[in-house]
């Protein structure tokens, strides 16, 4: 229990640090929100008025603590570009990105774990080099590239979905998930390849351990040893790896949302940085960071339930 509290405390500190660094980054980058909003229509008077309205004339720490206080009281601020409360703008996008990321995670887990175990059987086999080469290829292809191929192939040629027209997640769940599925696959492909390689090497190294040799020499079936003991012992590193995968998926989603024209958080983040819409950027960055840290924490907590030695500070 103490461990859980420690992890949650750590989570909060990470979040604070992330929010502070994001805030700091805005003051360092070139570009002024008021100037960006008014564009070539800007006059010195209107610029000054806008800066005052947004509180940009206040000192750095005043602005940061004001934002922090707002955040904890549930007020995420008002977007500069849209003049709308930030939460109203991003609420639907959180759902879209979450749905796509979970879909991608599901694909990775369902495809790569069985394949990873299965590929152990191939070790040293005649087609092992072919499998390795294919795996390398999948790892090397960036999601934006597969995204373009998939959009063209499945979208324009085969017409299985309509690029640039994502159905609404609430009113048309099935169609929206179908659309997101293609994007999720593009994010998943390189991670599937990595997970398979990780699984394979973990299984190989476990199989070379002395307890396995003993078990087999005692007459146990090789396959039975694999499923009963080796897989259980590989679980901790697999969960840790899948935790990291979730963070990678979030990163991949930012790129893939652009390619597929998916109205999610990542695409909104990129556009908002362009508009210098700091209240929006700040909120999205904190949300994404929260998600990454949360998944890491869950993976850790799961691992120490599986392997109680970890609670004492041991390493997996």
């Amino acid at each position, binding site marked *: 229990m103490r461990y859980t509290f420690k992890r949650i405390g750590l989570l909060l500190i990470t979040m604070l640090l992330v929010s502070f660094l994001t805030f700091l980054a805005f003051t360092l980058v*070139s*570009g*002024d929100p008021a*100037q*960006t*909003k*008014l*564009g*070539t*229509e*800007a*006059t*010195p*008077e*209107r*610029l*000054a*008025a*806008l800066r*005052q*309205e947004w509180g940009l004339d206040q000192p750095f720490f005043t602005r940061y603590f004001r934002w922090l206080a707002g955040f904890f009281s549930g007020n995420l601020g008002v*977007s500069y*570009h*849209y*003049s*709308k409360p930030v939460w109203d*703008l991003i609420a*639907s*996008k959180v759902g879209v990105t979450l749905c796509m990321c979970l879909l991608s995670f599901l694909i990775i887990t*369902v495809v790569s774990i*069985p394949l990873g175990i299965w590929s152990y059987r191939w070790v040293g086999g005649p087609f092992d080099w072919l499998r390795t080469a294919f795996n390398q290829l999948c790892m090397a292809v960036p999601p934006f590239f597969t995204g*373009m191929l998939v*959009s*063209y192939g499945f*979208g*324009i040629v*085969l*017409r*299985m*979905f*309509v*690029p*640039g*027209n*994502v159905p609404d997640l609430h009113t048309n769940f099935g169609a929206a998930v*179908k659309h997101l599925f293609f994007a999720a696959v593009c994010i998943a492909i390189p991670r599937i390849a990595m997970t398979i390689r990780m699984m394979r090497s973990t299984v190989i190294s476990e199989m070379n351990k002395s307890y396995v040799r003993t078990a087999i020499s005692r007459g146990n079936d090789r*396959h039975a040893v694999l*499923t009963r003991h080796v897989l259980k012992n590989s679980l901790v590193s697999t969960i840790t790896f899948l935790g990291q995968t979730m963070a990678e998926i979030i990163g991949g989603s930012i790129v893939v949302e*652009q*390619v597929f*024209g998916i*109205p999610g958080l990542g*695409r*909104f983040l990129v*556009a908002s940085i*362009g*508009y*210098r819409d700091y209240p929006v950027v700040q909120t999205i960055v904190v949300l994404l960071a929260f998600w990454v840290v949360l998944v890491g924490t869950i993976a850790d907590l799961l691992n120490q339930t599986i392997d109680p030695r970890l609670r004492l500070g041991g390493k997996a």
Partner: protein
Amino acid sequence: MKKKVLAITLVLALALTLLAGCGKSSAPAAATTTETPTASDAAERPNELSIGVAQDFDSLDPHHATAAGTKEVLFNVFEGLVKPTSEGQLVPAVASDVKVSDDGLTYTFTLRQGVKFHNGDTVDMQDVVFSIDRNRLAEEGGAALIPALGVIEDLSYDDTTLTLKLSEPSLELLSYMTLAIIPADYDQQETAPVGTGPFKFVSREAQDNMVLERFADYWGTPAKLDKVTFRIIENVEGLVMGLQSGALDLVMHLTSNETAQLSTKDFHVEEGSMNLVQALYLNNAVKPFDDVRVRQALCYGVDKQGIIDRAFDGYGIPLGTSMFPSFGKYYDESLTDYYTHDVEKAKELLAEAGYPNGFDMTISVPSNYQPHVDTAEVIKEQLKDIGVNATILPVEWGVWLSDVYGAREYQSTITGLTSDNMTARKLLERFGSQISNNFTNYNNSEYDEILAKAVTSTSDEEQTALYRQLEVNLTENAANVYIQDMADLVAVRNGVEGLTFYPLYVLDVSTLYWAD
């Protein structure tokens, strides 16, 4: 062994479900690929259009919106007392009649009877006065939204007539009376705008779409389409893909490279002009561009037609000053060839100015806009011939606005300047030495004198002549290297007709319709 069988069965089952899933989704889709646009198809097609736009809208409050792309679309939702036509005339809209006194000091508007807002209320004089005052009077922050309305000295009205008295004559006041008339007692304009235009606002999802519907109670010619959806797709590749996939029916502001990717079976391309002045804008306050001979040398060194041919496949109208053809009477075509491409002359001028071996310069280019980047590449090559070594600095749009446009910290830049109303003033006033948005630091006392006379002139003829003098002044002094009014290529799905080009940056969707 049992387990093995189970495992194999599970894997097979999984594979089958995946396949079945794919099969299911492809079945109805395959049917659509074989369909060709036939008469029966047209009968079922909803009377609506999906239009792709490259940047998201900002505030939907017509008085607070600043992005050109937002105003372009809000044109369909809002109207002023007067509104522009595609020929560049101003015609009465919410007002039914406009009278200007001979001395140009009194404007009288008669309110059109029975004009309805989208919320069902009838427009009354309170709404009109509220809309004008909102732009004319300083806000809490201190600045009026339209400073030019400061010439209104007195505003008086009864139920049907509005009289504006000006402190000095202004022929251009009427173009500012295109400002949107909005309901006085309504505070949701930012998010749920209400106007009097042929289309009413339905919904909007940030970074995704905006939906407009025909307004049934519109006072004028009703729109032909029932519904229009604007879809926001920031990258051009995505827009082209959206057209190909059928998600979009119309996309404006494309280049010839992009329209070439579309099949003529599905699309036709209509060509208008962007109505902007694309130029290599020079910071007249920094060396070596503070010397008129250097600026002239650049004008001789840059081959406008060469740029249009190499970077724009020949689409575009070469310009010689800060004015484009669609502004009719203000445009002086003879200035286009004032500087003909002449490498020797350019070198002579540079030698005279003390740069016999040329010099190094930088061109800051907004990197989000590929046509300007392409232009910069061609200019860089052309300037090599006169010994000038140009370096291209790509800058992000936000940085461009604050550093180049705002702080004027640059040597030269490529951009396009537009006007959002039908006056020459917007395009020419910015080169006055005392004007806050004179980002080129052009400083010419003769120019300032003519400008002061032009804006207060009471005769349209005299004013036009003065504006044309300003254009000559800019050309003779080579204020900037003027290049072209860029072509505006619009990809339109076959069957969609009625696209109308305006001399302004607007898209009129009320004239669009499906022909069949």
